């Protein structure tokens, strides 16, 4: 469905199955209200998340991307989040050169029991993305379409 205009922005979450997805479930069970922008993709481990998924999401029109895994030292697979931390950090620092604010992407750690922390993370990340506003979107096959619209917007 299209993004609800004026109400929501498109935020994609990649969550590890063992900790953060469980944390988001815990937040749900606790009825901790959250903004509705975020859509969650479940992966087994934060180490499974190819940072290129983040770019793919942004280039396909996401306004923000959030990754969450188990806390360091608490990875179900022992080391996945340690690799993830390095790779995601690199990608976060890389994004600005492409013309995306680094703040459009965040990664964090939420355990299965931290429902409240999850609520806090979602609320504050959604707020962060709304403050940035919609990300630039690529329209049409040629650059001119997008560039003209950007010029018009400016």
């Amino acid at each position, binding site marked *: 469905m299209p993004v609800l205009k004026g109400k929501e922005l498109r935020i994609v979450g990649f969550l590890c199955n063992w900790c953060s997805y469980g944390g988001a479930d815990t937040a749900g*069970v606790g009825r901790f209200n*959250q903004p509705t922008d975020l859509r969650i993709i479940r992966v087994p481990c934060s180490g499974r998340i190819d940072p290129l998924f983040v770019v793919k999401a942004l280039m396909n029109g996401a306004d923000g991307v959030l990754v969450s895994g188990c806390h360091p030292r608490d990875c179900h697979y022992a080391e996945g989040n340690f*690799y993830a931390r390095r790779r995601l950090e690199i990608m976060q620092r890389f994004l600005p050169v492409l013309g995306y604010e680094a703040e459009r992407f965040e990664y964090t750690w939420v355990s299965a029991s931290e429902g409240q922390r999850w609520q806090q993370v979602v609320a504050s990340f959604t707020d962060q993305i709304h403050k940035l506003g919609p990300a630039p979107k690529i329209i049409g096959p040629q650059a001119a379409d997008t560039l003209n619209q950007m010029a018009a917007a400016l």
Partner: protein
Amino acid sequence: MKIGVFVCHCGSNIEATVDTAAVAAASREFPDVVFATDTMYTCSEPGQDEIVAAIKEHNLGGVVVASCTPRMHEQTFRRTVERAGLNRYLFEMANIREHVSWIGKDRESNTNKSVDLVRMATEKLMRNRPLYSKKFDINKRVLVIGGGVAGIQAALDCADGGLEVVMVEKAPTIGGKMAKLDKTFPTVDCSSCILGPRMVDVAQHPNITLYAYSEIEEINGYVGNFEIKVKKKATYVDWDSCTGCGICMEKCPSKKATDTFNEGIGKTTAINIPFPQAIPKKAKIDPDFCTKIQKGKCGVCAKLCPSGCINYEMQDEFVTEKVGAIVTATGFDLFDWSIYGEYGAGRYPDVITSLQYERMLSASGPTGGHIKRPSDGKEPKNVVFIQCVGSRDKSVGRPYCSGFCCMYTAKQAILTKDHLPDSQSYVFYMDIRAIGKLYDEFTRRAMEEYDTKYIRGRVSMIYPQGDRLLVRGADTLMGAQVEVDADLVVLAVGAEAAAGAGELAEKLRISYDSYGFYMEGHPKLKPVETNTAGVYLAGACQGPKDIPSSVGQGSAAAAKVLGLFSKDQLESDPQVSVVDIKRCIGCGKCIQTCPFGAIKEMEFRGMAKADVIETICQGCGICTSTCPQGAVQLQHFTDNQILSEVNALCRF
């Protein structure tokens, strides 16, 4: 693929804030969706039957259920589609309860979001492939780590159930903390009288192999087929021939060795047997105190040993054991109370821990069961017990209740009166937690029959006055300052995770909480399982526990192991990584990053290629995101499956 979508109301749990009929209607417009409906309770029997019927009627190739979290019902519905003849992996869930209906009340946004999640699930489902488990043999031996009461119980139950058991204990004797206790609450029966026979059973059981004074060096493998490397620490005594006669101990001239078993009350000899009932009853040398090992002189024990088993050159030895399951029963350690300046931070010899006091009460302890002040050996008259030392105290990072201290303090107060009828005991407490069977009656007895003075409040200061200790505290019930002249102060130190718990958890690949206690699989429904298949928990390693609970968990863990081993073969999870041999360039990056050593290099037509060992692969997918070639793909979470989800959500 023909896809059917079932949108669950979950009673009003979802329907109240999501228009499920609208979600179903929107789903019908998605590619490949041929059937969509909303149902009241999809997980109920009629709900599941509806899925089965629809699969048959519409010849569905895959099913999406939009309902609760897959962590709740994924297994349920996988069985449902399997019942209708589909492969269990041709199924996806959209979590519209925990992630939608329960976290917001805006029906428009929720409905819109639910549609997105269903779309995402259908797009992924289109790229799902049937996956099949492989069967593999299991090794029906079990490793029990830790020989305390929980480990002993688990080991004996497993051994009696016909399993071969390997027990590894890091101390020179099994028995754990319970072996150090004099009496147990609330029955005040003798600890070693009830534990001793169990320890002997372990030693004599034909199915149990015991490695005492040994540690786990390395754990490899997976459920059904673990390979354990055990480090047998050097004892400098050949245990095969040691008879435990104790002559070496009688004659050893070095009498200043730390007496760990007696909690440092008194000293022991450099070569020693921890206590008379030790299992195994074998001597070991403490090399730090042995004159022969330190200075090359002495050798008295070697000269006197009737079986000639002293070997000053002994080295650590490693043995490998293969098992199919592991019970972790590593227990707890005591909080280091010297952080508390108000209790003297360890400066006053007559302020001791509850476990030191326990050794003092024990007839086989260093004082022969006589209560004596460590400073001058005199019998105390006033004994002050302070509870919650390192429990329920945020300021020292121990906000949790250790659970058993209230009870053992009451027991120690009772025993004090039994030993010294003229004595008077005082207990400073926060709350009395006596929730077990006969527990509250027991604490009442301590107060009423044994005249123990319970003072509700904390101690603010202990300082020496003459040869006594002045204990100053608050009585919060009276709203007054209290001062007690104490001859002996006993601190009810709390439990903390055993030293080295973290390192062992990393070897076991299980998780632990912020205090180092191991995490159970589910706080209510999986109390002895962990999230690593084939690894179980028993006793206080999972959280502070008293003896009956530890024993109960020991038996529960044994029951789990026996249940696991009731099959001859296990099924592997097919959600593992698979290498596409034509894409693989043999660079070995996946091998380098796999945390489980599940990928090996193999040769294929003269070229190096990666090869995943299915039974070792745990399905994390680190290799998949490492491989730039996309040559190794985690099944059910392939790049294409995740990309299709991204594309479903972000459509320019």
